[in-house]
């Protein structure tokens, strides 16, 4: 049988190296560029979303729109369709059009857009806020090292350390070892890289990774990947799924089996699923804070307020200092935000 988890998640600062950044706001501000917009009303912002087709993204977009309305600046949303090249072209066209003076970018591929965001955009007088995926090869970095010079800030919570903590959670829940499978996003995506890195280092000895599949984050692919893994590994204990949308398919495949599904996403559905026991746990994500904080950095800059170079979402006030890992026992301490 499975061992029960030995304890609640500990404080989430397990391996964060970015601790000090939050306190360096003053010196950070000195390194920031001067924005073209002289007042918040003059901000003309373009938001390059990696796509628009799931709830996570929709939640972020909607909050950002509301925020722009509240602050009274103009906002255009570009749908990157999960395609790095498309997004690159959109950014290039936006720079050329001269219609924008601020970008918020959720990169589909942080490497592709590196130059254009750190050199071309600033040269055109555009300030750039980066979120979710670090750019310029910083995607496996930690803490403040996820911020790239040339941009004003990086807002994120899905860095390597979170994956490392996630691995630790599983190990703690299964002190006697386990057979583990992973359902990941696209192979070359930053999340998969961090996920692979963390699991490779963390699961050794009695903790054994027996299978992993890359997908496009859709429910359908999550389902078929999980189904075949379950079929060929009847002795599997743990399935880790990197996004709630996929997890919906994963739990269909593991239904009736003695497999604990760990979810990353923390949407309304996953809260319900944790409650009903379909999911062992989920990880809170904050799409609303993510987009709004990125835009707020621009607003702060225009207003001459300090701008942090790194916003760590896993330490967001919304979590009230709690760990982002949600178990059935701790469910009522959290509310899903999408």
């Amino acid at each position: 049988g499975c061992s029960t988890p030995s304890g609640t998640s500990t404080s989430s600062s397990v391996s964060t190296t970015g601790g000090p950044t939050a306190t360096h706001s003053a010196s950070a501000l000195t390194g920031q560029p001067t924005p073209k917009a002289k007042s918040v009303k003059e901000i003309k912002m373009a938001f390059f979303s990696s796509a628009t087709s799931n709830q996570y993204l929709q939640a972020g977009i909607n909050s950002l729109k509301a925020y722009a309305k509240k602050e009274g600046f103009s906002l255009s949303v570009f749908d990157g369709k999960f395609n790095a090249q498309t997004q690159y072209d959109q950014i290039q066209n936006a720079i050329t059009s001269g219609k924008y003076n601020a970008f918020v970018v959720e990169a589909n591929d942080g490497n592709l857009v590196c130059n254009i965001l750190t050199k071309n955009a600033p040269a055109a007088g555009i300030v750039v806020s980066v979120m979710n995926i670090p750019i310029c090869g910083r995607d496996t970095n930690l803490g403040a090292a996820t911020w790239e010079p040339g941009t004003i800030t990086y807002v994120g919570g899905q860095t390597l350390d979170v994956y490392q903590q996630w691995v630790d959670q599983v190990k703690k829940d299964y002190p006697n070892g386990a057979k583990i499978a992973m359902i990941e996003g696209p192979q070359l995506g930053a999340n998969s890289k961090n996920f692979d890195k963390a699991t490779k280092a963390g699961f050794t000895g009695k903790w054994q990774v027996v299978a992993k599949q890359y997908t496009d984050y859709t429910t359908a692919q999550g389902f078929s990947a999980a189904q075949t893994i379950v079929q060929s590994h009847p002795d599997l204990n743990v399935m880790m799924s990197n996004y709630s949308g996929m997890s919906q398919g994963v739990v269909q495949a593991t239904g009736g089996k003695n497999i604990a599904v760990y979810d990353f996403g923390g949407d309304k559905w996953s809260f319900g699923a944790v409650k009903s026991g379909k999911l062992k746990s989920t990880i809170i994500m904050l799409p609303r804070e993510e987009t709004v904080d990125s835009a707020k950095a621009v607003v702060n800059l225009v207003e001459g307020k300090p701008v942090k170079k790194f916003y760590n979402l896993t330490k967001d006030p919304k979590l009230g200092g709690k760990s982002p890992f949600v178990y059935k026992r701790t469910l009522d301490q959290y509310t899903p935000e999408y």
Partner: protein
Amino acid sequence: MTLYPAFLKPANVSNILTQNSAVGIIAAGMTFVIISGGFDLSVGATYALGGTLYAGLTLQTGSAVVGLLSGLAGGAIVGVANGLIISRMNINPFVATLGTSSIITGLAFVYSNSAPFIVTNKPSLVPAYQTLALTTIAGVLLPIWILIIVFVIAGILLAKTTYGRNVYAVGGNHEAAWLSGLRVKGLNASVYVLTGVLSGLAGMMDSSRLGVGQADVGGNLALDAIAIVVIGGTSLLGGEGAMWRSVVGLLILATLTNVFYSLNISQNWQLIAKGAIVVGAVSVDAMTRTRRRG
């Protein structure tokens, strides 16, 4: 075949079949399209539309039956539109369906407001919604029955009826069919309607299984379905081929995918092996078949 121990276990066979029931019934429709000398790239978009309508209307009306009917209707409407554009306006089916594909996807996104419809969030609707995918008859899941029934009916329709023969004639020699007084345009259009309805149904089956309807699925379905038909040995030039060939094509591709998943071969080597096996299978087929006269 004992590629790996669990391969022939009923549960695995059932997996293989359910996972491929959607692409399978789309391939059945695609067989008609290809034999008629056509091409349909819009099946993936129609599949997504079917699932989106099914989930959306089930949530909005509270009735899975209404959802089901609207999904079928959506597929049929797409098919009629494709058929009219291709046969009346005389547009190359490749471009026509590439175009409608884009339109359909756009409409599905607009309808769903760019987010998935999650039926599982309304537990009261879930049992009705999942009937299509999870009902078991004689120990076999409904989608598998649907797959079998679609192939049997499509096979009979193609091989044993006047309609089927006329489809071959239109694809084999458009002019001869026309000279013989066949309603060439109607026939040409009909195969797209068939494929539209089947794609809508396929989308609903998968959506029913997952409890989610979303507009951004089905990206590779058109190429997969066409590959199934062509790997089976049906000629893309039209006028030739058979439904059993598509069954063979489906089994080859489905088995391959399952074996790779299950053996846990690295996905990169899977890609390489899959490509090599597909090319290999078709070249063996090409070599064994006697070459046609000039």
